[in-house]
């Protein structure tokens, strides 16, 4: 019987594994609907451990949106750790959802949200555990339709063999359209089988079905052409964009796990999209234009969410939260509302300016002042011009010093290394900066115990960005730069002991690079790595660089390409990129020009304040920037209870 609970068979296994609570569901605000009451069943997967996947906003939003439909249900599933996977295989228990412990195999649609490409091996593991054929071509009409979403879906080519479709862009409306198509097809007796269902899905705005696009390669190993194999599907697939965020106030009742998760707070997305134009930032490029939630919309989501969850902290999320047109008022009025309630407000922001400190002071007046984070991203003024994140060294030091003077003891600075045109000198400036920040901070605050943590990782060029043509720095280059940086920081112990350095070595970034800018040939590498035991590649204790390198060498050799070809090689302007037929709205010529301007260290302005349609997104997608100010304000909440 489909939709039956696997729990009675799962339960004895749970007694034998680590952290069994992550597999039992029952979270506050979780929903279980009767199987037979609905036409379309969605399993939503976050392909990483429960503790990472549960707080994911995208999945939570779709879970609610789908469950609100009377004709659909949605349940969640996460990657299972190897200890349980081994027991499940031994006892014939398939990949299950945590809500009603139903077999993923029984659902109509398996939607997988990829925030990072390092989840690909976990997709294969879940498919295999579920008893779903790994390759889309081997599935029949009884198998779920496997749909990829999330930012990585803007180049799903490396997983094209394993997924049936990918949804580009915002999912809120797209999942509804997919549901309609699946429902109509099922109710009319599944005409034309799986092929027909996929053809219908391919005609849904934003849905890409890789099997209807054939890829050919030239003698140099590069793509010669991508051509559609059916006339009735679009040649280029454009992304979806939700225009009015206030109409989509999700999640309304965020899930609260019993188990510990990576984010012990609730989040409210205050705007989507970003037009700062940081050239390394895929999120900022593919989510244009900026669409703000109004101050009153934010206020009611915070209020409703806190009442529904009991969380003590609210994060005001977006790609650069200090940029909301009414952020000062939002911060002040929320802080007023929650004064004396032990409710913490936080604002993850990447901006480096005094305004950011002012906001942080305002938000922390009700409670905990943890550390303050700034993200200059590049070590030198020169490299910051290259990446279009311009802030002068003086401003940076002044801003951080202001934070110390305001009582913040711990400041975190985020950087990348391996950026295009970067030299050792650019990275070494990070050390100078940190030293100066500590000196000035000690003076301004009059105390010795202030700390600065430098957090740095290797840059990975991403599709649909001006850096999509760049040669990625090798792991050796990254590791070398990190080494010289560490030595420079430790050179003066009296200052160096106040500076912490957190970094990731260069190897995982290279594999992320392969998966980010790979094409369909990379699918064989992923499959090989999974067959050899690769799982949880985002976790250093599970990731094996050697396994990936060996698999890439063997699987790519027959095509005359290799790992370096996909990663450290700089692309030329005329090269067909694997994602060219996927439309983020960005004009490829604009991206190329921006890449050239990056190389000549020229900046580009934010189109929120200097009207500009050059990137192409608004005209192509029929969208417009949606920002305030609205002129509205938050009234004090009526005191409920005590």
């Amino acid at each position, binding site marked *: 019987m489909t939709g039956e609970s696997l729990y009675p068979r799962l339960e004895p296994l749970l007694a034998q594994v680590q952290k069994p*609570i992550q597999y039992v569901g029952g979270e506050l605000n979780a929903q279980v609907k009767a199987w037979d009451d609905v036409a379309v069943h969605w399993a939503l997967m976050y392909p990483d451990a429960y503790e990472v996947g549960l707080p994911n906003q995208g999945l939570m939003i779709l879970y609610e949106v789908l469950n609100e439909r009377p004709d659909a249900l949605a349940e969640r599933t996460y990657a299972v750790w190897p200890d349980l996977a081994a027991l499940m295989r031994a006892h014939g228990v398939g990949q299950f959802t945590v809500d009603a412990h139903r077999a993923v195999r029984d659902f109509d649609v398996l939607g997988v949200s990829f925030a990072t490409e390092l989840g690909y091996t976990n997709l294969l593991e879940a498919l295999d555990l579920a008893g779903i054929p790994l390759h889309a071509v081997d599935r029949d009409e009884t198998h779920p339709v496997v749909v990829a979403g999330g930012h990585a879906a803007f180049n799903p080519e490396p997983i094209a063999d394993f997924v049936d479709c990918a949804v580009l862009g915002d999912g809120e409306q797209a999942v509804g359209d997919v549901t309609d198509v699946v429902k109509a097809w099922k109710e009319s007796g599944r005409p034309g089988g799986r092929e027909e269902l996929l053809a219908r899905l391919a005609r849904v705005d934003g849905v890409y079905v890789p099997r209807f696009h054939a890829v050919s390669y030239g003698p140099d190993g590069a793509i010669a052409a991508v051509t559609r194999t059916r006339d009735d599907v679009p040649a280029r697939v454009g992304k979806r964009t939700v225009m009015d965020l206030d109409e989509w106030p999700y999640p309304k009742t965020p899930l609260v796990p019993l188990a510990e998760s990576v984010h012990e707070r609730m989040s409210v997305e205050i705007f989507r999209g970003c037009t700062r134009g940081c050239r390394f930032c895929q999120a900022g490029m593919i989510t244009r234009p900026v669409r703000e939630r109004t101050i009153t919309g934010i206020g009611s989501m915070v209020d409703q969410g806190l009442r529904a969850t009991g969380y003590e902290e609210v994060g005001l999320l977006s790609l650069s939260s200090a940029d909301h047109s009414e952020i000062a008022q939002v911060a002040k009025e929320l802080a007023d509302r929650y004064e004396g309630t032990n409710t913490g407000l936080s604002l993850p922001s990447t901006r480096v300016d005094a305004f950011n400190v002012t906001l942080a002071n305002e938000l922390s007046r009700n409670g905990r002042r943890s550390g303050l984070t700034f993200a200059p991203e590049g070590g030198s003024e020169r490299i910051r011009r290259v990446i279009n994140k311009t802030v002068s060294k003086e401003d940076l030091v002044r801003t951080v010093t202001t934070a110390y003077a305001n009582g913040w003891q711990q400041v975190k600075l985020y950087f990348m290394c391996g950026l295009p045109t970067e030299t050792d000198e650019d990275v070494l400036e990070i050390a100078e900066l940190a030293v100066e920040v500590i000196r000035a901070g000690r003076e301004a605050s009059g105390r010795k115990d202030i700390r600065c943590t430098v957090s740095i990782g290797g840059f990975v060029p991403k599709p649909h960005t001006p850096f999509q043509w760049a040669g990625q720095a090798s792991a050796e280059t990254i590791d070398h730069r990190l080494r010289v940086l560490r030595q420079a920081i430790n050179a003066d112990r009296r200052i160096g002991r106040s500076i912490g350095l957190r970094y990731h070595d260069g190897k995982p970034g290279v594999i992320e690079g392969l998966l980010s800018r790979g094409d369909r040939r990379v699918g064989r590498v992923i499959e090989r790595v999974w067959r050899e035991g690769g799982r949880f590649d985002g976790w250093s204790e599970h990731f094996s660089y050697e396994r990936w390198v060996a698999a890439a060498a063997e699987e790519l050799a027959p095509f005359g390409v290799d790992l370096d070809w996909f990663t450290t090689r700089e692309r030329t302007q005329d090269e067909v990129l694997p994602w060219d037929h996927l439309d983020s709205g960005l004009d490829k010529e604009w991206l190329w020009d921006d890449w050239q301007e990056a190389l000549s260290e020229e900046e580009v302005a934010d189109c929120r304040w200097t009207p500009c349609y050059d990137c192409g997104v608004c005209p192509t997608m029929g969208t417009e920037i949606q920002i305030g100010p609205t002129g509205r304000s938050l009234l004090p909440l009526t005191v409920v209870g005590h």
Partner: protein
Amino acid sequence: MARSPEGPPPPPTVQKLRLRYAKRGPLRFASHRDLARALERALRRSRVPMAYSAGFTPHPKISYVGAAPTGAASEAEYLEIGLAQRRDPEEVRAALDASLPPGIDVLECVEAAEGGGSLADRIDAARWSIELPGIEPAELSAALATFLARDEVTVAKRTKNGLRDVDARGPVASATAGGAAGRAILHVVVRQVTPAVRPDDVVAALAAVADLRPPSPPRAVREAQGRLDDSGTVADPLGPDRAARTRCQGEHAAV
């Protein structure tokens, strides 16, 4: 020179409530930390006027007593909370129970009697029932006889500091076999010692002395916690508070 919290100190505790709650069904897989988080959030959702500690990171006043291990169900978990405003215990119980996920069920709430001592002091033993799937009651009886005849049965126990040998026999005050065909149930009263002897340790001890090995994992339920009296009964730790309450109400009635 730490930054000091601004404003007046938090209001003091004016009432202490003691609660008994159960963890049931799939939620037996919740750890103590999981439960503590869930309870703290439920207290906020249900707007119980908690008293907070002073300082920069104020914590609600909650003390937990002897949590059952992850994987074990329980009908007798205890905690004490401090309130900044007086509330009717039954209302608190109902509100808290309603805002907790099904499977964490708040069963009782009584006001702590003044000068009645701490809750922890009223608990030194637990009564367990441990279901052994695939084991016959007679098999269990025989194994128990062997086990109880020993003065000491050493089992290796996983602790924070690696494997450690503990005596699983000494703390066992009583043990009997029950249940039905193919599903024996071990009823056992275990004294609190350090490191704790838990249901798994007792089952491991039966394997060690009598080769009793259930084909699938045992399912333990903690049925009671409290002070072990001379008759071998585990007393209700909330009893004294309830008695004081009744006495107090009685005196009022008499006036």
